[in-house]
């Protein structure tokens, strides 16, 4: 799947030339004259993509756009390009989470590096996100009682303790535990704990044990 670069620059000449270059390098390119135009057609973060943004564009400025995108929940990484990199703007951009900050004129390799890095990081983040989503989906399939057992097991409670806490028999706990392992598709307690760790389920306080009858 070709990677997509969104180019936002008010300078037609630069916009076209950078588009031309990126296309020659095998990217898909979408060009926008202003930040508003980009926001109107807010791209779905379907494939690997990033935004190449001129800091000084009329209307909504680069850092402002970054802000608005973040509020819209977009995770599209932004690579800033500027004709004149003053310290203030750079700091502001980086603080707001800019992937990179390049000064015009920029050499092709440097530009591609920055774009690649941004896309790769975005990609990695997305994959991580996807995996978490898969895990969350699996955990969501547990019954409440199974979830209680899961929470206690990953915190290292013995079956007997769990049975005592939940007010049930050790045997029932064993059966629930077997069901949890099946539903979550793990074969060992270690895998189960690792999954809980990824889901950040350990940091939460021990869930109160509710009698489930």
């Amino acid at each position: 799947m070709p990677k997509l670069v969104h180019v936002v620059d008010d300078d037609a000449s630069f916009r076209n030339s950078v588009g031309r270059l990126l296309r020659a390098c095998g990217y898909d390119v979408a060009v926008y004259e202003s930040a508003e135009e980009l926001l109107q057609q807010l791209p779905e973060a379907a494939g690997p993509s990033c935004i190449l943004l001129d800091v000084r564009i009329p209307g909504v400025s680069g850092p402002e756009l970054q802000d608005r995108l973040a509020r819209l929940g977009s995770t599209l990484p932004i690579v800033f390009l500027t004709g004149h990199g003053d310290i203030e703007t750079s700091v502001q951009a980086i603080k707001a989470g800019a992937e990179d900050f390049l000064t015009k004129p920029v050499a092709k390799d440097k530009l591609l590096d920055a774009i690649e890095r941004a896309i790769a990081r975005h990609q990695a983040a997305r994959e991580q996100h996807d995996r978490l989503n898969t895990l969350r989906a699996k955990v969501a399939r547990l019954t409440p009682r199974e979830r209680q057992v899961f929470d206690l097991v990953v915190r290292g409670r013995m079956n007997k303790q769990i049975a005592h806490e939940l007010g049930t028999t050790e045997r029932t706990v064993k059966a629930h535990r077997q069901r949890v392992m099946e539903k979550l598709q793990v074969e060992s307690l270690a895998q189960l704990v690792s999954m809980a760790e990824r889901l950040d389920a350990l940091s939460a306080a021990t869930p109160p044990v509710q009698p489930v009858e």
Partner: protein
Amino acid sequence: MLGGGGSVRHCWRLVVVLVAWLVASVSPAAESRPRSILVFDQSDVRSPFYQAIFSGLRNAMVSGSTSPISIYAENLDLSRFAGAAYAESLQDHLRIKYRDRPIGAIVAIGSATLEQVLRQRAILWPDVPVVFAMVDEPAIARLRPPSDVTGLTMQLSLRDMMIAARAVVPGLRTVALTGDVLASQTAYRHFADEIPTAAADVDVMNLTGLPVAELRKRVAALPDHTAILYTAMYSDGAGTFLPPADALALFSDAANRPIVITAETFLGRGGTGGFVMVPSLIGEGAARLALRILGGEKASDIPIARGDVIRPIFDWRELVRWNVNQTRLPAGSEIRFRPATAWDQYRSQIVVIVTVVLLQAALITLLIYEQRRRRTAETEARNRMAELAHLNRQATAGELSASIAHELNQPLGAMLNNIETAELMLDAGSPKLAEVKEILSDLKRDNQRASEVIRRLRRLLSKSAIEAQEIDLNDTVREVFEFLSTQASARAITLNNRLAPQMLRVRGDRIQLQQVIVNLVVNGMEAVVDGANGDRKITGRTALLNGASVELSIGDSGPGIPLGRLKEVFDPFFTTKSHGMGIGLSIARTIVEAHGGRIWAENQTSGGAVFRMSLPLVQAH
């Protein structure tokens, strides 16, 4: 003139006879003296010397007194008439003549007069004080006047005559003494005693007592280095009596050497000059004393003193005749009869004319100097302004460096992108020629764009001399707004142009006018950024005013200018910014005024400040 009078022995008889009667007739009170004086002299009325004494006396009496004083005068003519009978007849004459005339003071001129007066007074006016003048000191010693007689003595000296003689005759070897025999002249008698000391180193040729005819021959044949000393002569030796001045004239024309004289009246009669008695001074001196006595002062309280009546005076014509070096004359010498020069005659006119000419010249010089100074100052001011303007442009350029960098980097970035794309395409083989062509054309355009940025920058910064040319103000404004557009958009400021539809021709320096506009716009931008106003807007307007001038205004949507500071903003070093020198607007004003225009600041009713400038329109030919 000062010839000895005869003795008046017989008058004593008369004195005794008349004493009783006279005592009654004389005013006894010394305190309130009659305002009258009786003046005696020893001459006849024709003598110029005594006339001068008398007029000097009268003038001094008149000018020295507030109330009128009666002046009676008697010319005793003592050099020609003498003897007891004459004295006796005089006494009768005087007694009868002045019977009803009270006399406050008696003035006696000359030694012989004093002698005669003292005798007559004893009989006729015993209580009337006497003032004398021109009496030689030996005579005083001899007469021993009583205490109510005072006056001024006079002493002629041979020494003075010798000083004058040496002055007019350099290398003096001989003096020829002329006049009556010294022994017969009371005023000159003592000269004989002075000869051994005062004239020791010269030969003294005695020509005194000679008849005029003889004298004329002798003075015509004097040797070199000789001076003639003339005392006084009262007769021609042939029976004619005459005043000494006239006697001098009888032989002076024959003299072959200069004649040193003793009286002012001898000047003009052939005398060269010398230490001369000035008769008017004699009269004045006597008058002053007489006035004091009439004023109540006692004669006995006034000591007898020597009168200051002798002055070194010379006749210019004689000095020329005898070729006398004037620098040799005694110090303080007065020279008479010098023909009046143009300076003497027209002194005031000459002074006025010269003064006017000088003043005019000074004025012209001053004006030329001022004009030159002004021209220098103007040139200087122009140069200074150009320098300051240049500095200001550099400062502005510094402030605009971000936008300039941006403007340059934009085309440079595009060019690099295009070049690298072309490289990629060439590397890939079988490039699409159409696309390469397109890339090349873009490269060319971006290159031109970068060049234009640099060209504009150079024009802004160029330190060129002021050159006036006809320009379109609209173009100028447009160019500046274009130049500043990126700067403005980076700060989210809208730059608007509302330019007049027609061409606005003004005469001026394009760079300087642009600088003014840049300054105004940059100031405006700072105002709208600093202000909390959400609407960031700068509007440039041009308009034609009444066909004779054009107006350009730069308005902003900032907070405006406090009312009291609308004028102050143009002062040098006025600034509200944390950076900058505050000379931008002052330079702007200087530039506008140098273009014959005007610049001022206002606040807009809609808010924000507006700077307006008017420039003269160049009429289309």
